[in-house]
């Protein structure tokens, strides 16, 4: 996608750029000046909003992270790196980073693997795949709050469907909500349920764009379905896989709604984003400390994005 952007010569941006070729360097012509102000009138409101509410907070966060500051209090002390030091030297850091790693890796791996399997099913030539494709994608667009509540009810150890099914086979329902480890498992399951449709649809688009002649040649050569899948589809899908890896990684690191609804106390499910929220807007109102966690999260996201920009052009391209 970025390739398309950069390869486009700037001259192709429309008639305004190409039509008056002769007096191009003539300076500040009336038309040029008019275009200058037209551009500002059209684009400035949006650009200012992006600057104020997207870029400015990044710098403010870094500044706040150097403060010992209680949210709502009028005074703050500059403490330099103290917030970072106290975060990384506390027992919380290992727990929060560990939870973030487990949550992110399992949700990314789970939704990608299951997404690919669902995509293979959707790619079969039977009737109803269009409907199934929409159905599988639907949870991705639904409110995380609503979805979280529905699943919380399903997991309810007393009156939930799951407990009822388990009773049917003579088992007790596990304490999904009170046990920190199980609550992480629960949130992961629901997160994968909500997001695998996205992976499935993207993988399906990838499968459908595979070169049919190559696949047919392989099947005439006697490669069976599974062989062809492993040695042809999987490598040919690597650009799709890479795209999904990056996008799902970034969104998993930002997962908030489900965690907030299903485990409000963050007991066992406190990822970086949730810990940052709890520290600032929970009981303690530690704004500076929370900002330092946000900066750590942002640094991780930045590294992933930079890696994407570096690798997406080079490594995975077949065409």
């Amino acid at each position, binding site marked *: 996608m970025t390739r398309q952007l950069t390869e486009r010569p700037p001259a192709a941006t429309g008639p*305004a750029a190409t039509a008056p070729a002769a007096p191009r360097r003539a300076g500040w012509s009336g038309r040029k000046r008019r*275009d200058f102000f037209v551009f500002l009138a059209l684009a400035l409101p949006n650009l200012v909003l992006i600057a104020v509410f997207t870029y400015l907070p990044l710098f403010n966060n870094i500044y706040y992270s150097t403060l010992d500051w209680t949210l709502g209090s009028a005074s703050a002390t500059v403490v330099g790196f103290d917030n970072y030091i106290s975060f990384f030297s506390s027992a919380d850091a290992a727990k929060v980073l560990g939870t973030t790693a487990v949550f992110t890796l399992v949700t990314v791996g789970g939704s990608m693997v299951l997404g690919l399997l669902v995509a293979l099913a959707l790619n079969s030539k039977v009737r109803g795949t269009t409907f199934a494709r929409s159905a599988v994608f639907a949870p991705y667009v639904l409110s995380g*709050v*609503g*979805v979280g509540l*529905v699943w919380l009810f399903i997991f309810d150890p007393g*009156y939930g469907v799951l407990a009822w099914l388990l009773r049917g086979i003579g088992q007790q329902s596990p304490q999904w909500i009170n046990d920190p480890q199980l609550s992480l498992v629960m949130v992961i399951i629901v997160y994968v349920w909500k997001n695998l449709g996205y992976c499935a649809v993207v993988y399906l688009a990838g499968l459908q764009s595979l070169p*049919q002649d190559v696949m047919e040649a392989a099947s005439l050569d006697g490669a069976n379905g599974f062989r062809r899948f492993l040695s042809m589809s999987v490598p040919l899908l690597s*650009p799709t896989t890479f795209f999904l890896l990056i996008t799902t990684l970034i969104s998993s690191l930002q997962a908030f709604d489900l965690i*907030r609804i299903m485990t409000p106390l963050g007991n066992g499910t406190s990822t970086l984003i949730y810990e940052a929220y709890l520290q600032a807007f929970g009981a303690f109102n530690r704004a500076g400390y929370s900002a330092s966690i946000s900066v750590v999260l942002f640094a991780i996201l930045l590294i992933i994005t930079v890696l994407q920009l570096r690798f997406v052009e080079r490594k995975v391209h077949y065409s």
Partner: protein
Amino acid sequence: MSLLSPVSPDPAAAAGPSSSRSSGPDGGAQGAHGAPDADPGIPQRRDRPFSRANLVRTIAGGYIPLILATLVVFLPLLWMVLSSLKQPGEIITMDLKVLPESLNLENYQTAMTTVPFTKFFMNSLIVTAVGATIKVLLAVLTAYALVFVRFPHKNLIFVLVLVALMVPPQVSILPNYILIAGLGGKNTLWGIILPGLGTAFGTFLLRQHFMTLPASILEAAEIDGAGHWRRLWQIVVPVSVPSIATVALVTVVSEWNDYIWPLIITDRPETMTLPVGLTLLQNSEGNGSGWGILMAGAVLVIVPILLVFAALQRYIVAGLTQGSVTG
């Protein structure tokens, strides 16, 4: 498809799965005399169109995974709707029944009297309508300017918009809270709407689309004396309706579902949106007996988007998976 049944030169094979579906369980028998091995030119293949093996493979490989995947999505949502219609006694029971005994909307009434649900609903509608309208408008204007209006360092500006697309809003909530609360925007609808108005996503998507428009039609309009404003509204916008619809729908969905920001900037029910209001409802009803009421609340937040999605899913899927398939 290619995974499940090797491509056969026999054209009848292509019709195999669909015929076997319509012929049902006796498809195999029909195939036994329908396609004998009489054709001398074609070497005998394993996957004759109506063979029993092929039928089984179509069902096992084609339908069962599809049905399973669809059920995994639908059953929880169906359970939500059914439970929202149940009396507390039908929910707090070890003896679970699938269907509610009678269709009554008591849970919905209780949800609306426990918390000001109508107010939440209206707030969500206002935030979504106003927010999405302004965002789409800003996206159209910015994308037009970036593509069709001459300006120094346009590409650099576009890169800055692209980078903004990658900045997660969650990282910005504390500074934005401090900024908006300082401006007096706490517990106001404008405070909910304002920080999200800048739109990198819509700008990016529409810019990509505008780049593909043929320059000739705009040149013709320019020669006719049409200014930027007329070119935008009389040419660019009318030919870009599908792309604008995509941006609009994705924006509507994300505004409606937005949670973390309204959660932080509101703490009074009068200005809460539906997802935040549901959290409030959860606090008062989340003790087991209130599941029916909570499911009624979940229906109210989920079903509107589900309906929009069902009607216009093509645009939404295209918008949300944008950039996945490299051209």
